[in-house]
């Protein structure tokens, strides 16, 4: 796995001296540097990328974070932030000669404000733990990534994570109100506020999804919602994915925004069925799971409307969950789709492109063709409502198929760009999608991103080499991928 480090040239730091400097800030057991201690930090959820850091620091106060960053800034030591390490794009992958800053000890809920419906928490608090902490008040935190039992709210902010209910309730950026961040020079800054807006630029939004490149998030105030009073779920089967895609468009055109609208293709249905026995129709080419929530009267009306739409969109079968138990069963297959697919093959690689919904049939067809060309199976699970695909490429690393899987993944992402979509809907660019960034953005846009980063981090010490590729890398890549005799970045000098 090649690093994106062409332009970085950080001085070599003496480990012993560094440990000594850190021990004036942290207790000894919060500084890890022995191989067996730092091994658990070598990768995030994308385990194909592995790298040991020089040292791991585990602060538990904001002041310690400030001092660590001041030190790193002084001695030019790269810093990679890490939440729970569930990221799927290598965002928290350590930097070889750098410090890995784990926010794992920041795991406290600081304040719950029932009246304002907000919770202020430390960044290492798990996503689901927030909803659990406010459940007795009838409230919850809406964004629900499938990894919510494990992932941290700091990581969610850094990735702008979404979930199966983002269609109605939005992404992380729509559900946070205030952040406290520490900049690379150790300053503590508040972004957003207790009101609904704040003076100056919208740095709250800018920080969301910035992948640990602009600052360290040390406190998050999230908005809470009242738990929906009534939830109803439908499951529809189709003998043609095109019809399933059309059904999604028909529901949205009818003016109904479901809480969740998820699709699975045949391979994913079969894998899920073998794993959790959710009773999915095995003869279907695709299924849709559609959830509505709100007040009983309204939901009942919408369910009836959607039932009709699904039938009109040629669904071969429509089921309405008759009770909470059946509703959970409907979801069980979807929520376990990744591990279920994982059982089909020694390894799988999860992609994350987004496309305009209407391109779904075309993209599914093209993916099937690619899957044949590369001779690797692809199972599809996606947030159909907002066009966010999660193709799962099945491969066997022990047979040397990783490279082939990555190449196929890259092709799928380029396909997403081609149809007017994007290479990442919620997992971030990290280390993984740097090459596709060269396709999605022009050189001038990438330069603008680099300039923006420098506004926060002039020395490039925060998460170096991630999220935004160097122009050098794109030029080299361009030289390798000449399409129809046209170079992707003709304006750049070839190296």
């Amino acid at each position: 796995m090649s690093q994106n480090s062409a332009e970085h040239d950080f001085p070599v730091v003496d480990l012993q001296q560094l440990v000594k400097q850190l021990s004036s800030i942290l207790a000894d057991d919060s500084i890890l540097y022995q191989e067996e201690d730092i091994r658990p930090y070598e990768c995030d959820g994308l385990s194909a990328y592995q790298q040991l850091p020089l040292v791991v620091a585990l602060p538990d106060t904001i002041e310690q974070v400030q001092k660590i960053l001041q030190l790193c800034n002084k001695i030019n030591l790269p810093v990679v932030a890490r939440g729970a390490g569930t990221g799927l794009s290598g965002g928290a992958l350590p930097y070889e000669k750098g410090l890995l800053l784990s926010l794992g000890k920041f795991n406290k809920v600081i304040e719950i404000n029932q009246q304002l419906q907000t919770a202020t928490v430390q960044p290492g608090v798990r996503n689901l733990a927030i909803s659990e902490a406010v459940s007795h008040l009838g409230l919850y935190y809406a964004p629900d990534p499938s990894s919510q039992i494990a992932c941290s709210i700091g990581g969610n902010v850094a990735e702008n994570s979404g979930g199966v209910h983002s269609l109605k309730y939005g992404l992380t950026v729509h559900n946070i109100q205030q952040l406290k961040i520490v900049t690379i020079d150790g300053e503590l800054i508040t972004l957003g506020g207790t009101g609904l807006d704040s003076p100056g630029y919208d740095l709250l939004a800018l920080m969301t999804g910035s992948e640990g490149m602009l600052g360290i998030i040390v406190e998050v105030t999230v908005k809470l919602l009242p738990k929906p009073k009534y939830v109803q779920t439908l499951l529809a089967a189709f003998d043609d994915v095109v019809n399933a895609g059309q059904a999604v468009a028909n529901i949205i055109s009818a003016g109904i925004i479901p809480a969740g609208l998820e699709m699975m293709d045949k391979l994913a249905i079969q894998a899920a069925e073998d794993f959790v026995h959710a009773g999915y129709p095995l003869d279907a080419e695709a299924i849709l799971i559609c959830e509505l929530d709100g007040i009983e009267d309204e939901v009942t009306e919408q369910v009836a409307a959607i039932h009709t739409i699904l039938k009109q969109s040629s669904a071969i079968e429509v089921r309405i969950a008759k009770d909470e138990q059946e509703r959970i069963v409907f979801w069980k297959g979807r929520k376990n789709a990744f591990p279920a697919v994982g059982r089909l093959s020694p390894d799988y690689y999860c992609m994350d492109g987004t496309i305009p919904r209407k391109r779904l049939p075309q993209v599914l067809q093209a993916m099937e063709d690619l899957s044949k060309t590369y001779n690797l199976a692809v199972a599809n699970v996606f947030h159909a409502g907002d066009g966010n695909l999660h193709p799962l490429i099945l491969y066997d690393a022990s047979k040397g198929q990783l490279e082939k899987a990555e190449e196929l993944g890259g092709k799928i992402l380029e396909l997403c760009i081609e149809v007017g979509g994007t290479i990442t809907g919620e997992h971030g660019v990290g280390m993984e999608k740097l090459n596709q960034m060269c396709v999605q953005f022009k050189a001038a846009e990438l330069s603008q991103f680099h300039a923006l980063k420098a506004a926060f981090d002039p020395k490039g010490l925060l998460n170096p080499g991630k999220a935004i590729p160097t122009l050098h890398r794109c030029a080299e890549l361009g030289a390798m991928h000449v399409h129809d005799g046209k170079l992707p970045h003709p304006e750049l000098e070839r190296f």
Partner: protein
Amino acid sequence: MKDKNISDQLQNSVEQAIQTKTKLIIKAGGSKDFYGRTAIGKELNISEHQGIISYEPSELFITVRAGTLLKDIESVLAENNQMLAFEPPAFGDKATIGGTIACNLSGPRRAYSGAARDFVLGTKIINGQAEVLSFGGEVMKNVAGYDVSRLITGAMGTLGVLLEVSLKVVPKPETEITLVHQLNIDEALLKMHQWSTQSIPITASCYHQNQLTIRLSGTEKYINTLQHLIGGEVLTDADSFWHSVKEQSHHFFDSKKPLWRLSVASNSEITSQNDDTFYEWGGALRWIKTNTSQNETPHPLNGHISLFRSPTKINDTFQPLPKHLLQIHRNLKQAFDPHGIFNIGRMYQQF
């Protein structure tokens, strides 16, 4: 609606401004001239840059040129039973979508659906090096690269010239009803907090002179049920009432006194006299008419203050930024507009 693309012309103007070291004031309909500070330089008018580039009701987005009139966009959406969920105030017939996004102004629905920035999916801009750049896109979920589109939203043209904006649009609610309650302010705030924890689908609220007015949206049957649950008198002329709140043509705003805008935590202490205060957003937005100057108007502890309208322009319209935050703003300005040509001083004196 006109369909005209003047990007090349605008790009040339920016190039020339760089060469001749001329500062530019980006302007379209001029409907928000009253808002913020006055920039210095030569006018760069984008009003001609108009038209809908793509609109797909079933994909829930619209992409438009920045000079397109807000009212034109709203009527095209209405034909498809859709709307802009942030209910932007226009402050005049000539308001364009570019100005609306640049100011991030949102109306009564804001507290319940989100602000302009929440619905921005993508932008195309000219930066301070005369480069045409695109960020974000037309899909709902997109985390490739930094969220420049939301950074630009509300930056009042200080970071670049907006050429195009893609916005998420939403279906119009089936029915709406507006109810009026006679309450004192403490009771009114309490009620609003209670309702908001009960999933009551409030989509607008305001309070003035002992009247709490709320709007509910949803299906017809549901709204009927709710009306009985919540009580209050039905306001018959509701659309024009909310229009008057949004556009500030309500009699409260008919005044020569400076108008201050306080954006605060909705449960913040009540600090001013009833007749001179108008509440929106469940208490999170408070308009205050007062002749006191900036120095005498206390900065709220739980939010921020700005001078929204004033017969005379003053130096600091927006609440000053803390030192380190100001430095980041300057750095960002430098990153987007290294020659310092766009809307200098429009937002803050320092950039």
